[in-house]
């Protein structure tokens, strides 16, 4: 316990150190102030943005739009990808049919499809959510399929030996045994969704954190750009922490 506490202090300390160095650099004018605003300047900007909003919309709306897009794409990927991945993991024929398609599309950075998606689905929400969905979906499918394939033969034999039916084997053994991979899939997919929301908002969005970054940078409003980046980082971190909390609870039986 003390060791964990020590490590937490070290993590906290490194954040303090970063902000300190950053403050010193800006106070001593080691960097151009218009390129690297001081932390204090950013606090002021943030307070101002909370009061006035950005680009005619409240700050919360920007945050809400980005979260909504990422969450929609992510949830759609999970709802469709988990069952599909499990199915592929269980059926070698289906897996063989899908493998070349996944193999081809997976190494292509999802952002490469952005313009095409805008052409197909318009400049609105559909192209953005569609892009996030597509990128997250393959991750979920592949991780879940791997998880199902990796269920130890020993456990399957033990279950058959205990007299479980095919259906019981699936729901009471295969699914829980694949849970660690499913959780890994969710974490990877959530990270991808959040990364892509920013990218998708660079094209034709009127609100969202990606929009703030692009718009502010175009007007050389560097503090607002920083606020956008910091918000993206903070929300991503909180999302990640929440998911790892859920993961620890769901997988408590791993004894970690």
């Amino acid at each position, binding site marked *: 316990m003390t060791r964990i506490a020590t490590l937490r202090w070290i993590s906290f300390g490194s954040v303090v150190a970063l902000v300190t160095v950053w403050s010193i650099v800006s106070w001593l004018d080691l960097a151009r102030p218009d390129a690297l605003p001081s932390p204090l300047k950013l606090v002021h900007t943030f307070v101002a943005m909370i009061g006035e909003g950005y680009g005619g919309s409240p700050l919360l709306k920007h945050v809400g739009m980005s979260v909504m897009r990422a969450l929609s794409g992510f949830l759609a990927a999970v709802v469709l990808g988990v069952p599909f991945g499990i199915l592929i993991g269980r059926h070698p024929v289906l897996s063989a049919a899908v493998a070349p398609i996944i193999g081809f599309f997976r190494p292509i950075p999802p952002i490469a499809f952005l313009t095409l998606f805008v052409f197909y689905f318009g400049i609105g929400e559909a192209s953005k959510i569609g892009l996030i969905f597509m990128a997250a979906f393959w991750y979920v499918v592949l991780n879940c399929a791997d998880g199902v394939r990796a269920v130890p033969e020993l456990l399957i*034999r033990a279950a058959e*030996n*205990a007299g479980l039916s095919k259906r019981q084997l699936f729901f009471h053994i295969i699914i829980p045994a694949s849970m660690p991979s499913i959780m890994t899939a969710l974490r990877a997919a959530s990270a991808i969704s959040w990364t892509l929301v920013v990218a998708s908002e660079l094209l034709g969005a009127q609100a969202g954190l990606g929009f703030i970054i692009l718009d502010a940078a175009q007007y050389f409003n560097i503090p607002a750009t920083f606020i956008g980046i910091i918000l993206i980082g903070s929300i991503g971190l909180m999302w990640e922490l929440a998911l790892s909390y859920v993961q620890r609870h769901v997988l408590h039986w791993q004894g970690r």
Partner: protein
Amino acid sequence: MNADLIIARGLRKVYPGRSENDAPTLALEAFDLRVAEHEVACIVGPSGCGKTTLLNLIAGFEKPSEGELTMRGKPVGGPGPERSVVFQQPALFPWLNVWDNVTLGPRMRGVDGNKLAAATERVLANIGLEGFKLHFPYQLSGGMRQRVQIARVLVASPDVILMDEPFGSLDAQTRIIMHEVLLRLWAEYKPTIFFITHDVEEALILGDHVYVMSRRPGRLKAKIEVPFPRPRGYELIGDPGFAALRSKVVGMLREEWETK
């Protein structure tokens, strides 16, 4: 003597090669076996002789290539709880606690909840797991995990318990404790046990008969009666008769290693 429970006649098991250049493996050939009801049958043999193949056939995980394998006169089919296996590795479901691991099979088969709970309480108490009902597998030692497997098998009340070197990966001291646990449980439940081991001493302490297998392809080389009265304890090891029987069986196994 009790009636025969398991009969194998002319069993043969061939594993096909993985490719054209890979020759098929003949694991068992012309294998005959009779195991009586309530018997503890210990199978010993040189490593790779097809002991586990034999167990997998009886368990129904694999099918014989040729020959006849029956239990109570009926051909052995796919895996089922009437032939419950204690695996060498602790095959516990890590997301279930001890109680749920032990009761999973009967619950899935729709066994009456009250009866199951009573039987489970009794078995867990008997096997020394009373205080561990809510523990998860990762919280248990190797010996305790094997106890959970044995408890699971006893609660299933099978016709035969198939044990595949269940204590092979335990340390020497825990192994002795597990032998005593098993002897005590046999005295209480009198199950038929089919026990695979490479440890001659273990076979002689536990078994009513020791079945010595030849090297691969495995055949039954000898069926040796173990005459020591029950209840047995570890003091049996000091008995001159035990030592004599031990060297006899080891001698038979040695013939198999040496005639290459």
